[in-house]
């Protein structure tokens, strides 16, 4: 039983670190955000493992869910803005 728990702990922490690393280094921002949301979900599993169910609920709802929604909507708006400025530059160059 104890060994199983250790294996579980180590796997989860490894997943946590790997997700964080990938979220911070993957070249595509959309992928990064999705990985970050996954990171938040694994974090809330870790809170359950640490006997902190209140924190787990808060993390799942706020940390992963709402932060993820905020990040994705910000990314969508950033890309829109980039398109607009890009078009403006192109039309300015065309004239």
């Amino acid at each position: 039983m104890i060994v199983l728990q250790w294996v579980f702990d180590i796997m989860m922490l490894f997943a946590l670190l790997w997700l964080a690393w990938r979220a911070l280094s993957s070249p595509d921002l959309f992928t990064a955000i999705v990985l970050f949301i996954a990171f938040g979900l694994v974090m809330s599993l870790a809170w359950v493992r640490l006997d902190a169910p209140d924190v787990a609920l808060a993390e799942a709802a706020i940390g992963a869910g709402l932060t993820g929604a905020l990040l994705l909507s910000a990314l969508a708006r950033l890309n829109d803005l980039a398109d607009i400025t890009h078009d403006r530059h192109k039309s300015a160059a065309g004239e």
Partner: protein
Amino acid sequence: MSSALLYALAGVSLFTLGLYALIVHAHLLRKILAINVMGSGVFLVLVALGGRTTGAEPDPVPHAMVITGIVVAISATALALALVLRVQAATGRAELPEEPLE
């Protein structure tokens, strides 16, 4: 080594990982992700070390502190994201300029 310590060490690793990414990456969205990863690391240390009790129940005070911290983190993230959008609109890039503008 107890599992409490293991989780706390993972927390320190996340903190350092986030700090590295915060300094190295230029894109502001990435910096915001890095700050959030750092925050998760700190929270992990805070809660994990509270599990070193003899009783069955872990210390609830760090749990409350971390819930406070999570709400502070989303507040800061929301403000930061709104600022990134304005920075991009004003300068055309979602990055901080190397030198302060004149």
